[in-house]
């Protein structure tokens, strides 16, 4: 994408996009490439079953992987803060490994590596009458494990942001550490965790495209295949632009949902709900945060 637009901040995002596109096209020399705008239009307005199932797969893999990531993240964070040294070690090694190696390597290792050695061959699983191929299972497993490592750090930061007085108050009322975590600390930490969690899920929606390496027919692979064969063969310009549009649709819808969740979670924080939360416009296109917006621990 040519970012040749000068002061793009002045232009509205939509016109910036159009302007940038025009510049890119104008800058190209004569080419034998035959644009077929119908491919772009059809893929976006009248997506066929292949595209729809790609979207569906991207979305469902993202959601399941993110949920696994959140669960692993909570355990990873608590493990890293555990009083028991071996638990701390396990958590640290897990986080260290999955944050320190490329996701692509993790995906291929988990699917091919475990497969050929017969450590685990990823047989298809029947779930509620639907057969889930091994590649999708392996993809979800890899994405979830990888996400869990990042979520561990996010959850840990969220927990650490809560005033230690909260844990003391809960303990002095007779709560155990576990109950204090569940009832008092984690619900408050959630408020701190949700904005970065939103970014993580936004990333997840796009990162699923790496599953191309194990041929999971998600959104990117769908368009990639359309480019390789069939009536739309070798129209990468229109096809991948259409893929980009579909990823934008997914991330935009998520942005709306995230803004809503953040507003819901803001209860009990100074300055809410009147001035708290993030407006949809700010969420989508950025923008200034409300001045003096309080962040972090509650209790004034």
């Amino acid at each position: 994408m040519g970012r040749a637009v000068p002061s793009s901040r002045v232009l509205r995002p939509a016109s910036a996009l159009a302007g940038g596109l025009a510049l890119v096209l104008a800058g190209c020399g004569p080419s034998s490439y035959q644009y077929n705008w119908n491919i772009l239009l059809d893929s976006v307005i009248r997506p066929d079953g292949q595209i729809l199932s790609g979207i569906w797969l991207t979305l469902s893999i993202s959601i399941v992987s993110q949920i696994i990531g959140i669960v692993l993240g909570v355990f990873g964070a608590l493990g890293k803060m555990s009083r028991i040294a071996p638990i701390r070690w396990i958590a640290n090694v897990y986080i260290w490994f999955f944050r320190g190696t490329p996701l692509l390597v993790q995906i291929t290792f988990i699917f091919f590596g475990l497969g050929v050695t017969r450590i685990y061959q990823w047989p298809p699983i029947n779930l509620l009458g639907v057969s889930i191929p091994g590649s999708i299972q392996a993809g979800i497993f890899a994405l979830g494990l990888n996400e869990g490592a990042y979520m561990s750090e996010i959850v840990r930061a969220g927990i650490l942001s809560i005033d230690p007085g909260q844990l003391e108050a809960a303990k002095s009322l007779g709560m155990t550490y576990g109950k204090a975590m569940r009832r008092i600390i984690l619900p408050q930490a959630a408020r701190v965790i949700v904005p970065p969690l939103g970014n993580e899920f936004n990333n997840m929606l796009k990162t699923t495209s790496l599953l191309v390496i194990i041929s999971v027919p998600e959104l990117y692979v769908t368009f990639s295949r359309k480019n390789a064969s069939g009536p739309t063969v070798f129209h990468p310009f229109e096809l991948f632009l259409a893929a980009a549009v579909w990823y934008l649709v997914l991330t935009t819808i998520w942005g709306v949902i995230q803004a809503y969740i953040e507003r819901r979670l803001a209860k009990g924080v100074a300055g809410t709900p009147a001035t708290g939360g993030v407006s949809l416009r700010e969420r989508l296109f950025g923008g200034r945060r409300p001045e003096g917006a309080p962040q972090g621990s509650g209790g004034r």
Partner: protein
Amino acid sequence: MAGAPKGLHRAAGVAEMVKVGDDLLAAIGGLPAATSPLVVEAEGIHKWFGRQHALKGVSLTVRRQEVVVVIGPSGSGKTTFIRCVNHLEKIEEGRIKVNGHLIGYQEVDGRLKEDREKNIALQRREIGMVFQRFNLFPHKTALENVTEAPIQVRGIREDEAKALGMAILARVGLAHRADAYPVQLSGGQQQRVAIARALAMKPALMLFDEPTSALDPEMIGEVLEVMKELAREGMTMIVVSHEMGFAREVADRMVMMDDGRILEEGTPEHFFENPQQERTQAFLSKIL
């Protein structure tokens, strides 16, 4: 942290007239049953923070229904001491018993071994604590703050806990703010909710860690009123505070701490009329 952000509901700027019910403990079914005439028995407590020797052999006994006010300069160990009483701090030496039970430790072959977390939690149920900075749960309403522990820790039914919570909130003058979140309450109101929250567990002992020192001056009175009422009704209390009017009125005994030790102990009359230690005289002359 200090001032409430603009646009927030705040209690009227002037001191709020608070009516404290004269049957505060009736809300929790009267004074908790006596299990021991001596509520607190602390014996030779030593506490180190790394290399810093924070408590150097503190011993203190508190009888049932007694109100003990602990004073002393900052850093003298008074807050550390009451935090040891409910085992928010570990101790390196000595023994603390509450209602005759060793707190935080088990005695194994004459040596102290830290107790299991579950047992410590069980013991803390009987010890209410009020913090300097209130430490209310910001994601819960005033009523939910009060009912949380009875429901989650004692396993009381939700409707029962609500009735109990409303009864206590009414007596500390906050029935009308039951659905407010802590940020919507003034400091004085928050601290009264915090007292109600501790009371809802029907504790045998209440610990107050400088409960009024984070408050604006006009809000100190309403919190002290609640504490005085508790004292009058016979709650056993250890209060770390420099509110001398409060001490004079309700303390059975005062304790002066300095440099990790108890320097002087006696009735309020003793302290206000005839303090023995030079250090106590100097300290009192500064804060009176």
